[in-house]
């Protein structure tokens, strides 16, 4: 997935690193020190609809050409996460217990057009 540059108009992944110190939460989140809050943004023109991001294979390149040269149903396609990974957190709960847990689907790794 392309990472968004300021002038990238097409569907891409916008990366933001959030430091828990900046949230004022370092007193209860012990590990890690921060995490990648990425999100997907950008346009999905018809010929990119249904693609997993970059044309991952010859098949999807041909498929894109077919879509670009034939009127595609007028449904809009959106730029959405296509791959996400969990975030492992170590934190103190309100009783002062240490809790270690995996929060599923926390970090967006790839974006694509629905």
């Amino acid at each position, binding site marked *: 997935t392309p990472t968004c540059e300021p002038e990238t108009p097409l569907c891409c992944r916008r990366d933001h690193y959030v430091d828990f110190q900046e949230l004022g939460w370092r007193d209860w989140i012990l590990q890690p020190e921060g995490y990648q809050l990425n999100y997907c943004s950008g346009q999905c023109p018809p010929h990119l609809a249904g693609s997993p991001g970059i044309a991952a294979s010859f098949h999807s390149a041909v498929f894109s050409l077919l879509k670009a040269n034939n009127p595609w149903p007028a449904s809009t396609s959106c730029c959405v996460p296509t791959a996400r990974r969990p975030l492992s957190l170590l934190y103190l709960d309100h009783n*002062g*217990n240490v809790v270690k*847990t995996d929060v599923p689907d926390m970090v967006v790794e790839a974006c694509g057009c629905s």
Partner: protein
Amino acid sequence: AQGTGSVCSSCGGSKLAPQAERALVLELAKQQILEGLHLTSRPRITHPPPQAALTRALRRLQPGSVAPGNGEEVISFATVTDSTSAYSSLLTFHLSTPRSHHLYHARLWLHVLPTLPGTLCLRIFRWGPRRRHQGSRTLLTEHHITNLGWHALTLPSSGLRGEKSGVLKLQLDCRPLEGNNSTVTGQPRQLLDTAGHQQPFLELKIRTNEPGAGRARRR
């Protein structure tokens, strides 16, 4: 942001200024984390564990990722109180109210001091709610301890479940093993080091959904 290219490439609206976008991202991060941990607000830590105890306890946790999907590992530090009997101590743990938690692994970590008089017989009871002015207690496990230092004593997780109040009390009963004629030099409390970073703690592994619950739904 004004000027060319100041249109959002997703929705066509006007683009946010960098500071405004950053503030929005931080707010999103807070919501995302609280949602991921099933919390409505960030915990207010009134009694954080001592840093030294925390460091030692974390060293005992298995390194690497957590329990299998939807799992949690919890370390809960004990509050130690003396009880009437000469040989016993009461450990109180404050566990978070389970959200249909399924506890499947429990170990009690204790640090035994050099005052150990030969082999000790350590029995661990679960201290139940008061009935007819008597605290009821259920034997969970018995261990014979011959050396000093840290001991990880496995507890039957079935014996610890069902504590709705979230407060778990364990009674430790340390006595010299029968036939061991050396007398216990100090109170069990002196046998157990509960000061500073040698505080006893519970290491729990919890699955956040009851095993087989899906099967029940399918039926």
